């Protein structure tokens, strides 16, 4: 992290958060109509996710939403690794 004048002077600065990898979450009943999709309608305001909807969001945001009981994490199934050995041909 570069040293800035603010850090040297001991000024209070909020360091930018490192972007976190997105995770998949599912909206709970409690979170129905509480989480923004990021789209704002000029008549109705923010469009909100409904109960049961699934969406991807940065890990830190997901954790906060989960703490509030608005979402649950969706386990991502990892495809099983093939047991067949891959033969590498020498050319």
């Amino acid at each position, binding site marked *: 992290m570069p040293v800035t004048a603010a850090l040297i002077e001991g000024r209070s600065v*909020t360091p930018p958060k490192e972007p976190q990898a997105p995770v998949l979450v599912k909206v709970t009943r409690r979170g129905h109509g509480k*989480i*923004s999709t*990021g789209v704002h309608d*000029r008549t*109705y305001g923010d469009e909100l996710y409904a109960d049961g909807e699934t969406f991807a969001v940065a890990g830190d945001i997901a954790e906060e939403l989960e703490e509030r009981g608005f979402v649950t994490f969706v386990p991502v199934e990892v495809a099983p690794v093939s047991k067949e050995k891959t033969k590498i041909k020498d050319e």
Partner: protein
Amino acid sequence: MAVPSNTQMTYATIGVREDLENNIYKVSANLTPFTNMIGKASVNQPYHEWETYSTRAAATNANEQGDDTAASASEQPVRVGNRTQIFKDGGTISETTKATVVAGQSDTEAWQKLQKSEGIIKDIEYAFLTNQASVTAAGSTAPKLGGFQAWITSNVSRGSGGSSGGFSAGTVAAATNGTQRPFTEALLKTVLASSFSNGASNISYALVSATHKQTFSAFTGIADIRAEVKGTNQATIYAGADVYVSDFGSLTVVPVQYPLTRDVLLVDPSMWSVGTLRPMKVEPLAKTGDGSKFQIVAEKTLICRNQKASAVIADLS
């Protein structure tokens, strides 16, 4: 040219008096723009409450001649409240320091009190504008007031995954930040339109960070920025906008030095006020040695008269 030998120079002179100005120059442009623009009220206990109400939506209202009149359901106001927060700072100054002549400070103790008071005033503004949940005092828990960004739930534009806080059962919850996106004029216009439709008809200030102030100044609107250069005068470059005339009224853009970094607050100042339980006061503390101790304390809350009157554009990069 040569300097004659044995010429006494200042740098070899003993006893040159120091030339230290008897002034101290301070930087603090506009300490508290939000606190300055809103109202003031007295509160009587650490939990202050008030009621809010919105008129119902308009509908067709036409009746037959001689028709009997039925009563419609009576709408009740919503009761909301906020906690007070105790702001304080202290100082200790030795009796020797008090007796010493110091440049720029005719009274060293008074100087300390002044600069600490200014710090508290800034802390109050910080608490008001930040996304801070209210906290009820309990045991070793310090009470906190719910800040502006925590209050607003009706007129918000958040990034994906963002969620509003708001008042519920005696507490104001903080909002959850969403995914950041660029601040654009289109975004401002849609929020102004939806807020107006939702009852915010008197938004007159936009509080923005320095970065977003510059972004704001680049909004083109329908402006034609040209100025006539007369004679041999130099041209002036206009690169800043302080007022944005929207379809719903003029918006004065106020850059704030803290704490906004990712949010733009659209404010109707008539719907906010500072609630004071204890005004800021300097109190001497018990003497425990060869020095003087004091504390400066204030207890305040933020009164959001109706959160529907203001708006937040959150999660901006």
